[in-house]
């Protein structure tokens, strides 16, 4: 077995990089320069970790992780000492009601709610459902309007499973939230979760006879900026889109990208016009185009995209970055981070202009989350 992790020693201003892999989670720490990284892990060796989060609301610093074991099922665990100890090893607190006939397969997303609700949290899980907690994550219940959604019987899994992977609460209204799942597409509530309407008008479903169904799209990721939350950016299974009206309508923004197929998408922490993606060649060959590893960035909300490859391999790079494998931090000069299925993690401390290898040789990376310690 690998060495036991001991946790990170992190201070305000440090940057924490949380990396989930198919064989455990690795935690990295750097000072504000982000030029060198301490590593701690693997946490949960042998278990897949598709979801990680650092919740710093209310003045705390709580790590959340969702390790899953192919034999023994999924779990949700938390740490208040940057990974030195983890709580919650007994029964998984995330459970479908027995009468639903559903059972938890994987936790895909851990999302602290609005700053004004420090005890409220959300989870996106497989099979696709939204769970919520009103007591800081101690107890969880499925959101009834989503669990009992009339479309449920028609939702079908993509290759990764029927996962709810995106949770975007409206920072201005407790009643509105956008979620996305694959497949199924985008759904929005305007009444606090009682009802959920599909919001996929304009998003193509290349794999269906009807290319523009009301729902059923294979949406891979959606992001927005809290300063302009009604504007959504969407990476689709073929297609890059933007909505300026909370998903009521979508239009194509694949302007100058080598492919509009991909999984990962991340929002700049300070600029509502800046978004990052990692295009892949096609659904038939899910590797970076032209064997070059490049992140693409738009600074004008999708009107144009620029390749960012300085410091990244530009030949022989058959890389894949998955839907949660790309993230940004909120340092003054935003950091950008991603991990690959080949086990490499890269970081940029200058908003993507240049990149450096943080670590290679990890198990396949399925989740990257970054945060500045407050």
């Amino acid at each position: 077995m690998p060495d036991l992790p001991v946790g990170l020693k992190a201070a305000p201003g440090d940057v924490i990089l949380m990396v989930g892999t198919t064989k455990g989670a690795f935690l990295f720490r750097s000072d504000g320069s982000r030029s060198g990284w301490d590593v701690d892990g693997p946490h949960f060796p042998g278990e897949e970790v598709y979801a990680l989060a650092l919740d710093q609301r209310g003045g705390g610093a709580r790590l959340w992780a969702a390790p899953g074991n192919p034999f023994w099922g999924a779990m949700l665990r938390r740490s208040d000492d940057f990974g030195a100890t983890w709580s919650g090893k007994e029964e998984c607190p995330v459970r479908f009601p027995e009468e639903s006939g559903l059972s938890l397969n994987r936790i895909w997303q851990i999302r602290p709610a609005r700053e004004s609700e420090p005890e409220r949290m959300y989870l996106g899980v497989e099979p696709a459902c939204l769970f919520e907690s009103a007591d800081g994550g101690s107890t969880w219940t499925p959101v009834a309007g989503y669990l009992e959604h009339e479309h449920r019987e028609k939702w079908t899994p993509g290759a990764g499973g029927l996962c709810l992977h995106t949770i975007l609460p409206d920072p201005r209204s407790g009643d509105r939230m956008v979620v996305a799942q694959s497949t199924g597409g985008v759904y929005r509530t305007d009444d606090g979760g009682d009802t959920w309407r599909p919001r996929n008008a304009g998003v193509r479903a290349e794999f269906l006879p009807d290319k523009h169904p009301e729902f059923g799209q294979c949406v891979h990721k959606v992001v927005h900026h809290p300063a302009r939350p009604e504007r959504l950016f969407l990476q689709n299974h073929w297609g890059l889109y933007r909505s300026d009206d909370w998903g009521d309508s979508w239009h194509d923004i694949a302007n100058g990208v080598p492919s509009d197929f991909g999984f990962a998408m991340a929002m700049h922490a300070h600029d509502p016009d800046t978004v990052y993606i990692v295009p892949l060649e096609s659904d038939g060959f899910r590797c970076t185009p032209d064997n070059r590893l490049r992140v693409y960035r738009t600074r004008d909300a999708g009107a144009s995209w620029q390749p960012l490859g300085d410091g990244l391999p530009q030949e022989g790079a058959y890389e894949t970055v998955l839907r949660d494998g790309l993230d940004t931090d909120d340092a003054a000069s935003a950091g950008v981070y991603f991990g690959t299925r080949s086990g490499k993690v890269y970081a940029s401390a200058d908003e993507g202009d240049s990149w450096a290898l943080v670590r290679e040789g990890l198990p396949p990376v399925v989740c990257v989350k970054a945060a500045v310690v407050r």
Partner: protein
Amino acid sequence: MILPWQLRDLSGGAGAVRLDGPTDTVAAALQELRARHPGVYDRICTETRELRPHVNVFVGREDIRWTGGLQTPLSEGSEVVILPSVSGG
């Protein structure tokens, strides 16, 4: 009931649990296990009281897949063995 080593930190270190309740089937024995060690049960069975897909249960040397599943009968002294399958990557 014999537990795999992977679950023994959830049973207080015990590798075997003697069940004295009404355990005339494997399903009943698992519910008795649940009362004693809920964390162990949670790793073996889903919310719908089904075995997780990669968990195998034997009564003696017989895989319960071929003897009635969770309704496989037990008798006094039956030995139930829980083991993970050889799947995975």
